[in-house]
């Protein structure tokens, strides 16, 4: 079982959190902080497994993470999951994000947290792995997006226009901030 999926950036700012077991909001934040503390001090060339933090899990739980550019993807899993399997799952998830967002970067996750959630929902459900085939995941996500479009979507055209107008006044448009090479593209690893 997967107990939690956390995505945060190099500064510990959460980009997506998904707990499959209830924790109150303040506890969730503590867990994020603790996990960030544990993960961030590790070099990039050490192993991707960590014995779980004190707040989440215990001896049966492991943190399995990957670090892509500016983001950490952390899965907290128990012993029923295969460690290498989860590593591959993270890779599948990130590659799926890359496909859905076309060269995904941190900003995509920042501004489209809901979409990332919808993608994740096609990969993991209730803490159990639902689908590992990327094409299948992408297909389902796209079908649902198409459905949303046919319904007019949440932010219909006029609203978008308005928000564009609103942005005119802003001193800087975050889209244009140069955050360097934050594209989360990683050479595809050995096939699973």
């Amino acid at each position, binding site marked *: 079982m997967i107990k939690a999926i956390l995505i945060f950036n190099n500064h510990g700012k959460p980009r997506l959190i998904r707990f499959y077991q209830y924790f109150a909001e303040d506890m969730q934040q503590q867990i994020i902080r603790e996990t960030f503390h544990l993960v961030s001090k590790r070099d990039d060339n050490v192993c*991707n497994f960590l014995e779980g933090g004190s707040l989440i899990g215990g001896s049966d739980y492991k943190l399995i993470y990957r670090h892509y550019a500016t983001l950490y993807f952390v899965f907290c899993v128990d012993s029923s999951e295969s460690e290498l399997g989860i590593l591959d799952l993270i890779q599948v998830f990130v590659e799926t994000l890359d496909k859905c967002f076309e060269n995904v970067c941190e900003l995509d996750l920042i501004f489209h947290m809901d979409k990332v959630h919808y993608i994740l929902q096609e990969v993991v459900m209730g803490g159990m792995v639902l689908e590992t085939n990327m094409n299948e995941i992408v297909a389902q996500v796209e079908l649902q997006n198409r459905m949303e479009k046919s319904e007019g979507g949440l932010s219909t055209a006029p609203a978008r226009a308005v928000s564009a107008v609103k942005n005119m006044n802003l001193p800087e448009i975050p889209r244009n901030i140069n955050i360097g090479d934050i594209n989360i593209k990683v050479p595809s690893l050995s096939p699973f």
Partner: protein
Amino acid sequence: MALKIVKGSIDRMFDKNLQDLVRGIRNHKDDEAKYISTCIDEIKQELKQDNIAVKANAVCKLTYLQMLGYDVSWAAFNIVEVMSSSKFTYKRIGYLAASQCFHEGTDVIMLTTNQIRKDLSSPNQYDTGVALTGLSCFVTPDLARDLANDIMTLMSHTKPYIRKKAVLIMYKVFLKYPESLRPAFPRLKEKLEDPDPGVQSAAVNVICELARRNPKNYLSLAPLFFKLMTSSTNNWVLIKIIKLFGALTPLEPRLGKKLIEPLTNLIHSTSAMSLLYECVNTVIAVLISLSSGMPNHSASIQLCVQKLRILIEDSDQNLKYLGLLAMSKILKTHPKSVQSHKDLILQCLDDKDESIRLRALDLLYGMVSKKNLMEIVKKLMLHVDKAEGTTYRDELLTKIIDICSQSNFQYITNFEWYISILVELTRLEGTRHGHLIASQMLDVAIRVKAIRGFAVAQMATLLDNAHLLTGNTQRNGICEVLYAAAWICGEFSEHLEDPMQTLEAMLRPKVATLPGHIQAVYVQNAAKLFATVLRKHDGETESQAAQETSQLLIDRLPLFVQSANLEVQERASCILQLVKYIQKLQQKNVEVAEEVTALFAGELNPVAPKAQKKVPIPEGLDLDAWINEPPSESESEDEKPKAVFAKEEPKHSRSRHTEVDEKELARRREVRKQEQANNPFYIKASPSSQKVYDAPGVEHIPVVQIDLSVPLKVPGMPMSDQYLKLEVERRQKEKAERKKKEKKKKREKRGKERKADSGPESEEDITPAHQVDIVTEEMPENALPSDDDDKDPNDPHKALDIDLDKPLADSEKLPVRTHRPEALKSPAEDRDSESVPQETKKKSGKEKKKDKEKDRKRSKEEKKKKKKHKEVEEELLESQPEEAVQSEETKEAAAPPTSTSAEASDLDFWLSSAPVPPAAQEVTAPSSAAAAVDTSSAAAPESEPDEPKDTEPEDTKSSKHKKKKQKKEKEEKEKKKKKRHHHHHQHHSDAGGEDSVQNGTVEEEEPLPPMSNYSLLAENSYIKMVYDIQGNHQDESKVVVSVIFENKSDSFLKSMEFNVLDSLNSKLQRPEGAGAHDSLTVPFQLPPGVSNEARFVFSVQSIIMPQKLKGTLTFIVKSDESSTHEKLDFKLHFTCTSYLITTPCYSDAYAKLLESGDLKGSSLRLEGINMPFHHLLARICFHHHFSVVERIDSCASMYSRSIQGHHVCLLVKTSDQTVSIDAKCDEPSLLGNVLDEIKQTFSKC
């Protein structure tokens, strides 16, 4: 109105959406909290509007804020509103928000039940999907109960997308509503063979998750999983299954044996590291479960260790980590094979990666030996010094202690060294493990008597330097050590060189800053030291020193009397008064030393930690019983108990005090000593060590090399290294001496074979530096061995420990909403829940049909030919038209080997079946032996029926059976149309023969004589054949003949061919393409003295008559010189019994059956039967495949069913060696033959 709408949409245009919110937050980095609070106010306004789009937008923003840590539970109701929107876009937002912030305590969840149900049954698969996903995150027991049935229906949805989600969510439903597990399990099991790999994977996932917690309930699925393992190519599924097997093997070692080979193959063949790793892990689990006496598995261990070494040596840190992790599992059972990789593991200790170092540390535990312990610990101590983080350092500390103390300090040869290590560890700053060090110190000092002198000296130094330990308040943890130091110095104070100085150290004012429990020990042990000092100065008249000591105590103790800690206060004031009294006596020159020492006399023995728990309750003692009669209700006051305490109790206690005088005490002590001497469990101090105490000199302890007083007082100097050097020297010396001796011996034994002594020093060669006798911990007599007191009673999985193999009872079904329109229900729902598996089986059956299409085409021609025969037969045998269809079925089904064979065959049988590797069986498809794997010859423990004892209401049961019958008929009709392969999927029907033996003897005392159903088929000087015939519960016109071939000769038997002359009624099933007279090759060869079993399938038309078939076995006898062709004729006897299948029957159904009047009766009397009734029943059960329906004293009703559905009922009565059997059956000739056979069985014995 129109204006309002326009206004609404304009408002909306200026609402922030999620992107605006994020942007806003990013632009207000300085006053983020303030900005967000204004946003929340806006959101609250938006939620008040009627427009659902606005609400959804607001909820979407809330989801984001929730991620940032804001509590959004106040909007729960609005979330529910958005969830119930008809638009997918909004619904999705609502469910996402709900899944992020709803939990069991959210009260609005109650309101969602109907909405979710509506979404689940929505025609749009994504509505359903979104609802399932959301529900998986916030399902509550109530939701689970109310929706279980709807979700179960979705498990058979046409879209695999929904099916897989429904399957996965069932796990959550089971957790919250355990009652749903049994009704839903059959369908879940079917999903293991779903055509869609995603659904299959989901089902594997769920079952693995369930089985991980309660593996024993899922053992019966092992064959099915085994099949999946050998056929699946999906690595995810494989990994899950292999992990599951890892959990199952400890319960069933036979499973392990079966697994080894396919797993080894996978290890060799797979390129996926994850799969390889899990295989290795499971092989390890198998090896652990087989650990004893399997020498031929050393190859597997070698393979595992070798693969793991490759992982550990890999540059990928992840593989290295996992390799070490798996290595530590091997270590537990096969330490030797891991020890050879010591170099590698020590190397990992220096890895830069902390995770890897920790794993390597785990392994060290098993690497140590007497020889290398000091070396390894030295290395670890270096790491301790270098370690920067406290967590890693603490881990190191515990590991050092673990390693040293393992199995009763087995590897420690020099305890002085160990004590110095412990003392060195106390210098660690900020460790949390002071307590651990303290308990080690106590443990060693108490249990290793020879070390006490040294330990006391060290502890005295520690106490003297206590300021170093307590100086910093942050180092709190370590001051626990002082607890041990004080206690050791006090208790073993006779070894102290200068007790006075230690006493002074213990009474320093600074001590008052220590934690209370430590102060208490200080005070108590100060008194002990005081006693020692007094005794030292005993005899010196007017000893100044003794009086000074008393004064010291009187001066310093008041500090402790004022302590806030009650314990300290109480002890201090007691001791203070005592000392004051002693001082008075001293001033009067009274000898007090003796009396004061007596206060602390006596030896303390270590007691095992669980000793108290394990004291057995003496026989006849009922702890729950009233000691006195409970006061009766009518009595007005509790007078009686009052009287007890008021009158009798004081008398007792007073007498106890007064009567015990000195003499009596001495006598009792004597008696006790005697008792202890005779008690093997009481550990006595060995006489040698006692001597040491009498003369507190230290010549016994070889500390000559070290000047104790000097280095120990300098706390910065690593002491233990010296010991290491000394140890090496000592060992070399010893070795040299031994060599000398050896040489001497050699000289003496000159000419005899040379001894190889130059090899590496073996364990035994290392003698401990000094003779230590480790006192073992005391345990009460007859201690109870049970150790399972660590189970967590709050584990939610405990509720899921449910026997899944028991047939479903009527009451067990998922709650269905009754007011739902009938039309909506699927046919499976309104029927008895037991019929669910059959219902859905059909669906998966359809899929299988496709695969078999090819086979069928080929067999069509054959069928046409046979149809002619059939018509003739129909007239001849007056068989029912249905039977004709069935036999046609058989031909069709027998052609391809039954692919579902493993599923139906029960576990025991599966586990004990042919030694041919099962993977190979599946490949060598058309051999009839393989086709017959699914016999019911062995018992089916999972279907062990408890029906007779069942307490279900009777009427429901009988109605169930009726339904079942109707269903059967219906099915048979369907079969006619579809001509598909038929499976019995009822759990009832596959109980086997041996099982029914148990059935008949459930409550009996007497053991049964061993029974076998195998009877001799034929025999000559080369070979012996015995056989047994069993009906096949999967197919109504097939029986399986199991033949055991035993090679009696000294030669090799090969090319065995089995042939039978078919009759019109019974035919041997031959592979496709073979002629009607071709013989079947027995799929094995027989070395001398070996026996093996092969199975042959026969199809039968009519089963009402017994039949004999002639046959021949031909084989080649191959000896060293020659090979000859031999043959052996035999007659296969198909009794009517062999067409019966043990079928349990409820007593009410049985009664109905008898009442129905369809059955014709017959009876049988047996005279001179001289065996217990239960043996008689067991024999009938075993040899004739009956089951006991009900038994009352010497009368029992029994039931069986033929493979073609004839009911056979027996009423067996016994009195004085006469047994009368009244029987009823719907086929009189079958009954007559069965009775004849029963008679024969009993005439034989």
